[in-house]
């Protein structure tokens, strides 16, 4: 793999946009075959199977203790109606909306801010590479481990924050109490996600030729104005994509609250929709209801993600050219 052809950027850009070449017979299909086969086996089939399961249920007869007392039968849409009318369902949906309203703007705002600051500090490579690595570091920490670490930092008796505030005579709020727990969970996600999004935005910023700013600087524009009028519009497409991926991650929040759950009274088994799926499947052993809720979450994810892209009119997700 020693051969690296570095093409002048201008060539890459102009050629890449050209129409793709015509496939000859089965060639593209042959290239796609392994991917499609694996996709079918490990993604499509399980999803179809989940859809099937969501329409089934187990019927027990009598005491349900002998063998053969359990049979699987068609359930129609009863799993769906049961899931959606569960008194815990709507609160978990509202909670996830509130959570998303905290996480997505704060995380992307921080990511954008840090990316702009890195860009502004380009002349100081030591500082900017230290900061870049430090901020990106949490991406290396699995969500389960990250939640555990933050859990230690939240609990009053083992937290250095509480200790430090106490020294100043301030009573720290109990971060896992009902009024704070949403922020406590959101913080773990923000901590873990900011660095990655920052890198995405920073990459977009770096591809902008500096000559573009120079003229603005000569015209006397402040750094803030340059950031606001030139840099942010340039990274807008990247922001849109990070928004979509953050939105998906928000809807799927699971590892953080399930890890923090045993530490507090305030995180219930149905704290987020995906936790409800987990509870039904793994705690209540009712994979049928879990499958029904899964289908609902999957459909909602599609609608939101594609709907958003349609709304902003970007075609990053669709075929280019």
């Amino acid at each position, binding site marked *: 793999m020693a051969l*690296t052809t570095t093409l002048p950027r201008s060539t890459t850009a102009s050629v890449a946009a050209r129409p793709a070449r015509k*496939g000859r017979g089965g060639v593209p299909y042959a290239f796609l075959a392994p991917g499609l086969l694996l996709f079918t086996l490990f993604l499509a089939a399980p999803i179809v199977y989940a859809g099937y399961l969501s329409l089934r249920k187990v019927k027990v007869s009598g005491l349900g203790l002998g063998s053969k007392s359990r049979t699987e039968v068609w359930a129609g849409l009863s799993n769906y109606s049961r899931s959606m009318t569960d008194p815990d369902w709507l609160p978990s949906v509202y909670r996830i909306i509130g959570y998303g309203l905290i996480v997505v703007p704060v995380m992307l705002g921080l990511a954008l801010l840090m990316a702009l600051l890195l860009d502004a500090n380009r002349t100081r490579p030591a500082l900017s590479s230290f900061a870049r690595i430090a901020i990106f570091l949490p991406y290396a*920490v699995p969500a*389960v481990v990250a939640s555990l670490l933050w859990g230690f930092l939240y609990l009053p008796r083992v937290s250095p924050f509480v200790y430090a505030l106490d020294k100043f005579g301030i009573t720290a709020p109990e971060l896992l109490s009902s009024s704070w727990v949403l922020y406590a969970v959101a913080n773990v996600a923000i901590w873990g996600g900011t660095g990655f999004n920052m890198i995405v935005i920073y990459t977009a910023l770096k591809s902008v030729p500096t000559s573009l700013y120079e003229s603005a600087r000569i015209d006397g524009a402040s750094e803030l104005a340059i950031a606001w009028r030139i840099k942010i519009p340039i990274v807008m497409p990247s922001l849109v994509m990070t928004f979509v991926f953050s939105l998906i991650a928000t809807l799927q929040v699971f590892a953080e609250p399930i890890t923090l759950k045993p530490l507090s009274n305030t995180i219930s088994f149905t704290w987020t929709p*995906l936790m409800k799926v987990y509870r039904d499947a793994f705690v209540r052993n009712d994979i049928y209801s879990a499958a029904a809720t899964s289908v609902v979450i999957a459909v909602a994810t599609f609608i939101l993600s594609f709907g958003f892209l349609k709304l902003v009119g970007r075609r990053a997700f669709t075929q280019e050219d």
Partner: protein
Amino acid sequence: MTTIPVVVKKRRTSTTATMLLLLGAAYCLLPVIWVVIASSKSAGELFSTFTLTPSTHLFDNLADLSGYRDGLYWRWMLNTALYAGVGASVSTLVSAMSGYALAKFDFPGKGFVFNVILAGVLVPGVILAIPQYLLLAKIGLTNTYWAVLLPSFISPYGIYLARIFAAAAVPTEILEASRIDGAGDWRTFARVVMPMMRTGLVTVFLFQFVAIWNNFMLPYIMLGNDKLYPLTVGLNGLLNQGANQPSMYTAVVTGALVSIVPLVALFLTLQRYWQVDLAAGGVKA
């Protein structure tokens, strides 16, 4: 001179900028610093001394961790490396082939295939885990290395990225030239396309590597034998020992620290590949 005020202003902005950057770095490093310090404490100290005071028991803790059930922790580490290494390698190759086909060919059903794969990006792993288990159980593969590896060979996100990279990095002219030279499609792919996509493929590899390294749900469901566990599942087991066992916090904290070391090393050595432009498409080397 009229430039003086500009220079002064610039310096002030940049001091603020530096402060803010360092603040951000501190926020991100704090829990990591905490885990380093906590790993140096004995079990008693972990719950009695001030949390940011380091102690001297790091090596004792590492020895204890290594001694846990005849070095099971290191087996978990090897398993994780195997899952992430093999899984990400195969997944990268599969993604490269699919991404290349989607970016550089026109064929009936292309739009459909791409949209279906995109939809796959949106499906959460927790939802897939049970049906995947039930299906793999039908062919008797649960509780084996394959149960974790096979599902990780496919990454819709990897295909999505590979398509972006292929579109940006592989000029159609070169493909035409290669064809005129009489090279077959596979030869072209291996000798021309793959090298051109190299930077992008390393990024795909890293993405998938991190995703598998950090995965919890799939191995948690698939594996019953703790000799096959990856780190995440193993650490979770140390933490949740059931009501009549104390949680092994010292081992968990030390294990958590050790578990992130390889990934951090990977980040530091390969940092130039962590430059992803999701929207415009392309990795700037």
